[in-house]
C-alpha cells in the first residue's frame, strides 16, 4: 500500500520540524498549487485541530511496531569523499550548475543525513533548510511576436503561467503561444538513471565535507 495519492504526513520532514503549526499551517492555508493541493480558507480553530490531528497520527505511527522506520545520519557514511569530489568535478557534470565554494558552500551545515541525500538526488521539493529549489524558467512567445520570460508559476498541457520581471502573474493557453522551458532540474532527473550505487554515496560523502 502507500503511494496511492498524497504523501504520508507521518513521515514528512515538514511535519517532523513543525512546532505547533508554524510549518503546517502556512501549507494548509496557501496550498501547493504545483502538487494539486488547493488553498484552504479555514478558521484558526480548525487549523489548530488539523495540526493536532497530524501530530497525533505521527505519534501513533512512530510508536507502531509495524510502521515505517527511519534513517540515521550514521547509516549514510559509506561513501568515499575523495571519489565523490572527482565525480562532482568530472563525470557527474555537477559543476555545470554548482560550485563547492559558491552555492554549495557550507551546505553540510544546513542539511544533514537523509535530507541532504534527498536534496542531492532531486532538489525539487520546498527549500527547507537550504537554498530554495531551482524553479524552471519559461520563455513565452505571443502571437504578436513579443516574448516574455519569467519563472514558471504554473504549467500543464493546456496552460502556462509565469511570474514576470515585475512580479505579475500572467497566464496563457498553451495553444495560443509558443513556450520554451529551461528547467535546471533536468540534469538531476537525467542523472538518476546514470548514478551507480557507489557514485551516490561518494557524492554524498563529498557534500558532507562542504562545511
Amino acid at each position: 500500500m502507500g503511494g496511492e495519492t498524497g504523501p504520508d504526513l507521518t513521515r514528512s520532514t515538514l511535519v517532523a520540524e513543525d512546532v505547533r503549526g508554524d510549518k503546517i499551517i502556512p501549507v494548509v492555508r496557501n496550498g501547493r498549487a504545483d502538487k494539486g493541493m488547493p488553498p484552504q480558507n479555514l478558521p484558526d480553530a480548525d487549523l489548530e485541530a488539523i495540526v493536532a490531528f497530524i501530530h497525533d497520527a505521527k505519534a501513533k505511527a512512530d510508536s507502531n511496531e509495524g510502521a515505517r522506520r527511519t534513517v540515521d545520519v550514521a547509516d549514510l557514511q559509506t561513501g568515499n569523499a575523495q571519489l565523490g569530489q572527482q565525480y562532482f568535478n568530472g563525470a557527474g557534470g555537477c559543476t555545470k550548475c554548482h560550485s563547492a565554494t559558491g552555492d554549495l558552500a557550507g551546505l553540510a551545515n544546513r542539511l544533514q543525513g537523509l535530507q541532504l541525500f534527498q536534496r542531492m538526488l532531486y532538489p525539487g521539493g520546498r527549500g527547507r533548510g537550504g537554498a530554495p529549489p531551482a524553479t524552471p524558467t519559461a520563455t513565452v512567445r505571443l502571437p504578436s511576436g513579443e516574448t516574455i520570460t519569467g519563472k514558471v508559476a504554473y504549467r500543464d498541457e493546456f496552460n502556462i503561467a509565469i511570474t514576470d520581471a515585475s512580479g505579475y502573474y500572467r497566464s496563457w493557453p498553451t495553444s495560443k503561444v509558443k513556450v520554451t522551458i529551461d528547467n535546471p532540474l533536468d540534469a538531476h532527473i537525467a542523472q538518476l538513471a546514470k548514478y551507480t550505487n557507489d557514485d551516490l554515496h561518494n557524492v554524498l560523502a563529498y557534500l558532507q565535507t562542504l562545511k
Partner: protein
Amino acid sequence: MLRHSIFRSVVVLASAAGCGALLLAQSPQGLDPAMMLKPPADSWPTYHGDYTGRRHSKLSQITPDNVHQLTVAWTFQTGSGAGIKATPILVNGVMYITMPDNMWAIDARTGRQIWRYTYPPNQAFHIGHRGAAIYKDTVFLTTPDAHLVALDVKDGKLKWDVMIADAKKGFWSTNAPLLIRDHLIVGVSGDFDNLPGTLKSIDPETGKTQWIFYSTPPPGTPDSISGGATGGQMWMTGTYDPDLNLLYVGTGNPTPVLNGAARPGDNKWVCSILAINPDTGKLAWGFQASPHDTHDWDAAEVPVLVDGPFAGAQHKMLMQASRNGYFFVLDRTNGKNLLTKPFAAVNWAKGIDEKGSPIPDPAMEPARDGRLVSPNEGGGTNYRSPSFDPRTGLFIVSAQDAYGIYFFKPEHGSYGWAGADYGVYAKGMLRAIDYQTGKTRWEHEIGGEGSAGVLTTETGLTFSGDAANSVFALRTTDGATLWHSTIGRVGNGPITYELDGRQYMVVAGGGVLYAWTLPEKIVPPSAPK
C-alpha cells in the same frame, strides 16, 4: 398552475410504477446476477463495468468528431474534501458511489441523491475506497475496519453487517467486491502487520462465508511455500472468465515489506497473478510478477482478459501492467507466460527467468545506506484501472517513471514495514502498449504522479485524467488530445452508459461526480403570436 399539473402527473406515474413492481414481484432496482455476463448499455453493474476488466465500451454516440461538444449534464457533490477514488456502479438508472464509510445512491439521469448510508465512526485506516457491488436488491460496502455491510437498494437501510477480517490485527478494506453468481468475492488490505493474505467468498443473501483463500499461509500452517512471508493481500477487484469458471486476482506485496532476509525464496504467492475456482476457492494456477519482492510492488493491478491473436495463434489471454514496472501477457487457461516487457523505468531486475518472471537483483534490495531504485514505492502504475482497446490492440495505462530510495537495516526488525523508503522523483505518462510486442506505441504526459483510471470506447476515444486536475479525451490511435475540462483531481476511472438515448461519461473531480453528455437537442415550441 403549471407546477401543480406536473406534480400530479408524477404522482400518477409513480403509482403505476409501484403497481408494476408488485405484479412482477421484483424490485425495479435489483440486479439479476446473470446480467453480469452481458451488461446492457444502460448499466455499469460492477467495478470494471464487466467481468473482463477491459473498461472498453461499445457505445458510439460520443465520437472523436463531437467529443469537443461535451457538456455537463449534472454534478453530484459528496461534500467531502477527500477525493473520490471509487468507480461508480449503475443498475436500473441508479448509480452507487462510495467513499470510506459512505455510500450514496443517486439518480443517473439527474445526479439527485436518493439516499446516503454512513457507517458508524471507527478508528480504522481511511486510505480510500474503490466502489460498491450489487446483487438482486442488495448493495454492498466494505469498510475501513474490514466489515462488509449489506444495504437495501431501495432506501440504503442496513440488512446485515459481517466482519471480513479482524481490524484489531491490522486489516482494513477498500475493496469493491466482485459478484460471481451467488459468490461475493471480498478482499482486504494490511501492510503494517504480518498478516496472511486473505480473500473471502461471501453468500450475498446471508453474509455467511463460503470459502477463504489464503495467498500466504495463516499462522500454524505446516509446509509453507511462502518462505516465511506473510501478506499478499488481494485488495483490488479481480476479473472472471465464465467459460473457464476462473476468478483472476492479483496479490499484494509480502510482509515484512522491505526486509527480504527474513523471508528467503520467491515468497509464493505474494506479488502474483492467481486463477481461483470461484465455487471452491481452490487455486488453479499462479504466476509470480515479482519473486521475492522487497519494494512494496504488489501485483494487485487489474488482470485484464482479452481473447485474440498472439504470435500468430488465437489465445485466451490475461494482461497486467504491474506495479513493478513490467507488462505481462499470460495464457489465462494455464498461467503460461507469453510476454514480459517493461512499460516504465525499471532498474531492479537482472533479467527474465524461464517462466517469464523478472529476476530481482540482490544489489537493489533495500540497504542500510540506501539504494536508488526505479520504480518508487508507488510503482510503475498502481490501482488506477487500465483499459484495453480491441480495435487497436492497445493496452492503455496510467504509468510513471519514478525513483525512490530504499533502506533496511537489521534494527528495523521483521514486523510490518521493517524498513524505510522515500520517493525521489516521478513523471506520469499515459502509455499505450501494443500487447503483441510490449512496445509503447504512444505516450501522453500527465504531469506528476497519475491518479486516474482509463476508459476507451468503440469510436476511438480514450478518457482519463492528468495530475493537473483535468479530465481529457484522447484519440486512441495516437494519443492526441481532443477535449479536456479542468474539474479537480481526477482520482477514479471514468465510466460510460446510455440512458434515454443519450450517452453519458461520468468521472470524479475531487469529491464531485461530473456527468458529461452531448448537448440536448431541444426543439422549442413555436413562439406565441
